[in-house]
């Protein structure tokens, strides 16, 4: 009878309140210059909010062990996709990757210059 748990109104409303507070926090923090930390904090707060939704609203807290295993497996696949793809981009050499395009010339020029290949080290 694991999945037929009925959450209390109190727990649902407190999760809602926590989510609203965290939204205010993340908006507030975004206006403070913290360099790279801004990204980390924003993602950390998003992760906490998502976990709260999954844990209480989506009932992972009281779900069957098999369901939980599936949820964790899904997150593992997502991690594999992001980490391995990023690893590829971080380590591979892209000779023809344009660092920047040249500013657009006025519309009357019919021959557009080919963007120079920069980034060749």
């Amino acid at each position: 009878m694991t999945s037929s748990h009925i959450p209390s109104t109190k727990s649902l409303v407190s999760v809602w309140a926590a989510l609203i507070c965290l939204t205010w926090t993340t908006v507030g923090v975004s206006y403070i210059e913290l360099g790279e930390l801004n990204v980390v904090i924003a993602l950390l707060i998003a992760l906490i909010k998502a976990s709260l939704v999954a844990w209480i609203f989506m009932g992972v807290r009281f779900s069957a062990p098999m369901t939980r295993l599936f949820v964790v497996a899904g997150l593992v696949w997502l991690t594999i996709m992001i980490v391995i793809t990023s690893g590829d981009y971080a380590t591979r050499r892209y000779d023809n990757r344009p660092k920047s395009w040249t500013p657009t010339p006025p519309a009357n020029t019919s021959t557009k210059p080919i963007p120079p290949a920069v980034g060749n080290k």
Partner: protein
Amino acid sequence: MAELAHADDAAIADPSLRHHFANSAQQLDAAMLGMWTFLITEVLFFGGMFTAYAIYRTIYSEAFASTSHYMNVILGGTNTAVLICSSLSMAMAVRSAQLSRYKTVVISLILTMIFGTVFLVVKYFEYSEKWREGLIPGIKFDTVNYHVPQYAHEAQILFFLYFAMTGMHALHMIVGLGLLTYLVVKARQKAFNASYYTPVEMIGLYWHFVDVVWIFLFPLLYLIGNRGPH
């Protein structure tokens, strides 16, 4: 034979119980597992776009920072709050169904639909603002008047991702509103009660998932890089 007879008895006692399940708890667990499996494919679907976002954000970081100038944090924040409220009312709908409170189920579901509609209306105003400012890549992008002209090309990649991600999210919201309409019709016929509320629970999971996607979209698209001179 004894077990079969037992299963038939249970099916007669509870018409919503399919004969291949031992009891309604097992039936609900199976439905939950199936729904989560679907949601995981959705996680990976959106995950692909998040990965693309992460990579382009890293490659063209300055250009991407310049786009946050055009993101409306107030509208985005409002929509975040609206979606959180809709998730609460959805959770209340599931709870009411579990307690066989027929009237509360309908009210909670309609509230969820109202919040969902408010979200889409706000989204419409955001999109039309982008259209007016000429920020639609490929169709109507004003490279000349972009506030940091040297990034006008790379910035279009972010605007493309912005429309792809929020557009896919909005499409999921529209599908969700359709599913909620079905639930409201069924709930008005008192189709859901303590012994059978699977559709409410399943569509609830879907709705919360869509909320979770927005929880990540909001900081990534609206908040990161909204400080400093633009």
